[in-house]
């Protein structure tokens, strides 16, 4: 068995104030190279917090109080700054959620796309331009030369998301964190973007952490998944297995609450209060453990 690319081990995080409210409770998960791992949960489940912790972009108000994030054999939480700078944004990249706000409206697409190549690889001039054209062609953007000169407002939302995908892959990272990358898109565009992420990831052998609240998206793109509730891992395993026969009552309830276009009468069963109440108790007990040894 190969070593995982990313191994999160007992990660706990909490709000500095007020009251040191725990946000992540001893979360463990691993992602192998070439695998798409879904993080699923409702709002407040901690899925984005995990993503931000991996990328080292947690807001100041949140502190990590236990655990480790092993990436390619190194613990990201204990690395010196300089080494971290070499990894983040280079070996680990981000596909952000909202293609409308992730791009600077006053800079041309070409300049923003090549930030990584210039800053991390020192590329300049004709070589840089040629690589930029190549990157856009990779994400199937027609007339890449023309698009490089455009501003973000001049292109469609789906195309903006393609640009961000091209930028994420520009340094050929080992791991990509995709934070709800299709939530803001129409369904037909979403399908194109999912297809693109899958194709690029498979071609480059990239590991992907895919954050989403949409079980449909998870079912179609993730190899494995982690279901989160209240900063705690509820269930983890192969996507097909979990969705076909969820072991945990919460996962079952979440599936039952999800409306389906191919099934009448679905999606009108809220998660029973008993299920969340049981989890809340579990969550409350969990909170005591990790904070103590952090």
């Amino acid at each position, binding site marked *: 068995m190969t070593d995982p690319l990313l191994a999160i081990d007992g990660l706990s995080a909490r709000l500095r104030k007020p009251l040191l409210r725990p946000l992540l409770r001893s979360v463990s998960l691993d992602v192998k190279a070439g695998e798409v791992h879904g993080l699923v949960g409702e709002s407040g489940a901690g899925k984005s917090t995990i993503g931000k912790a991996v990328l080292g972009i947690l807001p100041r108000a949140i502190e990590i109080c236990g655990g480790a994030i092993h990436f390619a054999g190194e613990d990201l939480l204990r690395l010196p700054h300089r080494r971290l700078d070499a990894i983040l944004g280079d070996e680990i990249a981000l596909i952000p959620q909202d293609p409308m706000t992730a791009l600077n409206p006053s800079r041309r697409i070409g300049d923003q796309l090549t930030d990584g190549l210039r800053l991390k690889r020192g590329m300049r001039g004709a070589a840089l331009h040629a690589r930029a054209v190549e990157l856009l062609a990779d994400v199937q953007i027609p007339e890449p030369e023309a698009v490089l000169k455009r501003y973000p407002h001049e292109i*469609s*939302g*789906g*195309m903006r998301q393609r640009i961000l995908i091209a930028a994420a892959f520009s340094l050929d990272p080992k791991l990509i964190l995709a934070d709800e990358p299709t939530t803001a898109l129409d369904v037909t565009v*979403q399908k194109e973007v999912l297809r693109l992420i899958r194709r690029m990831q498979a071609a480059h052998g990239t590991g992907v952490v895919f954050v989403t609240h949409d079980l449909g998206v998870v079912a*179609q793109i993730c190899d494995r998944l982690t279901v989160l509730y209240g900063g705690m891992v509820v269930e983890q395993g192969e996507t097909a297995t979990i969705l076909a026969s969820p072991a945990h009552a919460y996962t079952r309830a979440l599936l039952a609450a999800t409306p389906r276009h191919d099934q009448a009468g679905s999606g009108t069963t809220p998660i029973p209060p008993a299920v969340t109440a049981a989890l809340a108790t579990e969550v409350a007990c969990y909170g005591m453990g990790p904070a103590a040894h952090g």
Partner: protein
Amino acid sequence: MAEAPALIEAKDLALELPDMTARRGLGPRPLARILHPVSLTVRRGEIVGIVGESGSGKSSLGRTLLRLYRPTGGRLAFDGTDITHASEAELRPFRRRMQMVFQDPQSSLNPRHRIRTIVGAGLDLAPGAARGREDALVAALEEVGLEPALLDRFPHELSGGQRQRVGIARAIATRPEFVLADEIVSGLDVSTQAQVLTLLKTLARDRRLALAFISHDLSVIRNLCDRVVVMRAGRIVEEGACATLFAQPATPYTRQLLDAIPSPAPDPGWLTRGAVPPASTAIVR
């Protein structure tokens, strides 16, 4: 089921608005066609879904049905009265009978007002408002499943689901006959969404409310609506009973929309199946 009487009847409704992307010197902006002639009927007790991708004109159609926009063609009738060109004063008596629930309860509820003020806003416009106001407020809150004690709270003290219920309570407080719900569950978690959908179904049934439900989410529409219209580029491309349309879409566009929905049952071929529509990669302008 016997056909219920039509409450909203739109015949060849057209809408043109100034094109904000075009400019000809200092003169007025040219008009852009937002709705091509569109016909739609909403009956009492019926939930009609309006679905489409962004820019398809679903919100514009909804707002025109409420006469928030003035149609530039066709005819719009509410309960048999022609309101196509009615003035604001003429519309006043109808306003109480048609209401709207907004997408984002975070931004559509005034953060400085208590729930009492927010939900009561519509009631205050009615003649003899003071009488029975409190009773009406309590009734509206109870009907959407909220504790009347919340009346004295501010929106920020409520959860997202509770806030959306306040939005619904505000809309139904005036006992309207027609309610337009524009993407009201898109910001909610699935569990909260399920609660809101169940609530809407109950309201439509018990109050014989005519409900127009705008959404980009076909899965939600399928499980809430009786009838659905599919919009694209300002036109209705397909219309039908929910059960029929989802089982046998008549147009390639509806087929394409349905095929693009990821289902929570893994389907290894789904991602690579189907043509990629080229439109979304085009440069805007």
